[in-house]
């Protein structure tokens, strides 16, 4: 097969993410779906002024330790980029929760970081509009709340709806279980998370996987994210990510 999307290293995979880029990052609950090594590579590169589009604005270190997740002592999720001051703006579904490490809260209240806080549903629909080439979506959630601010409201069949505009990004970093060299992806357990929607919504999607199989190694009907949405695949080495 002459097409091969597998890239040999994490640093190479993220080399073209420049200062000011917008990035979507999957993973919200637990270690599955978190593109751990891509995030470490982006921290090493030190890219700044990022717009980070992701489920949560906090690091889940305390939950990871509480439940005894693998790598809990050395927990990596998108929060490391906020901690390292590489982020200018956060677009998320959950900004911060009591008792979790909240660097974002400090940076937001000090006026250093911009925050767009959407809740999961409107956030997902905006990404879907971006992914599917729609001009926007009328959706019913957030009527009478802060989510109404600045949005067109319309009554359809007697129910109120808000217009959500498309959300896309320069890059998506996602974690999956297996890929073939064409970028077809399958996920493990609850590790799908935001992977499938972000892979569609971003212009360049980079997937970190535990295993790369030969073309034909994934049953066509088992594929969750078709390779058309995936530009690069990197395999996590067993020694850095079991």
């Amino acid at each position, binding site marked *: 097969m002459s097409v091969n999307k597998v890239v040999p290293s994490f640093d190479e995979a993220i080399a073209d993410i420049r200062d000011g880029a917008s990035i979507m990052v999957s993973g919200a609950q637990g270690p599955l779906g978190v593109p751990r090594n891509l995030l470490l590579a982006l921290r090493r590169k030190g890219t700044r002024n990022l717009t980070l589009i992701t489920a949560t604005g906090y690091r889940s270190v305390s939950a990871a330790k509480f439940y005894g997740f693998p790598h809990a002592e050395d927990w990596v999720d998108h929060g490391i980029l906020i901690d390292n001051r590489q982020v200018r703006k956060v677009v998320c579904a959950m900004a911060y929760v009591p008792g979790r490490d909240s660097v974002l809260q400090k940076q937001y209240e000090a006026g250093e970081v911009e*925050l767009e806080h959407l809740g*999961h549903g409107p956030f997902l*629909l905006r990404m879907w509009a971006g992914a599917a080439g729609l001009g926007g979506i009328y959706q019913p959630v957030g009527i009478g709340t802060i989510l109404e601010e600045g949005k067109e409201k319309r009554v359809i069949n007697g129910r109120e709806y808000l217009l959500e505009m498309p959300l896309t990004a320069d890059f998506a970093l996602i974690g999956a279980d297996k890929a073939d060299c064409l970028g077809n992806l399958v996920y493990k357990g609850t590790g*799908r998370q935001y992977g499938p929607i972000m892979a569609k919504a971003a212009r360049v999607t980079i997937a970190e996987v535990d295993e790369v199989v030969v073309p034909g190694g994934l049953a066509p009907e088992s594929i969750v994210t078709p390779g058309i949405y995936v530009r690069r695949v990197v395999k996590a080495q067993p020694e850095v990510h079991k």
Partner: protein
Amino acid sequence: MKERLDEQTMALRVARELQEGWYVNLGFGIPALCTNFIPEGKTVFFFAENGLLGFGRNADSDEAELLGWRYVDAAARPVLPAPAMAVFDYAEAFDMIRGGHIDCTVLGGLQVSEKGDLANWRLPVYKGKGGTIGGAMDLAACCKRVFIVMTHTEKSGKPKIVRECTYPLTAKRCVNLIVTDIAVIRVTSHGLSLEETAPGWTAAEVQELTEVTLEVSPNLKTMAL
């Protein structure tokens, strides 16, 4: 000081409302305890908004390790698979919610108004847009039924059942039932109906800790626990 129900007992009381065959979402905190109080023989399908439907009980860390940490709920808590469990992604999960396919959500509350408005996403200590919306607005606005389980008053004694919510709203006119540590209250088209009081509490004592005038149900009873 009169005794109030503890968190486990509040969860037990609200769990009794969950009916056979329902697809049910549980919020963080007290609502999540409901899984402990589904009697043997009753089937309730628990839904987690991170993409899990019909999961089993919580897994301890040894069990989770054996499963390769494969399944977690929306609070990142490892759970065991159950027969006929399904996994999917966030977008699918929120279509289930927004499309009205979830029979019931049990959520915590900071305030509920007499019209059934809910405020539960931002603690007053946070500023601006800070806080945690998560799935709360979708769940409250779109599930078929919304049950709130919360303490009747704030730690300071301030009532949480109020004429108008003063905290930022989660959704308008969405709550059907409120279970607190001293009462069970139903939201009706003409106001709030006091249906049950905790053992040792009278309707007048519950009213005293409630900003809204409660209509006392003709069938008022003491909670059977």
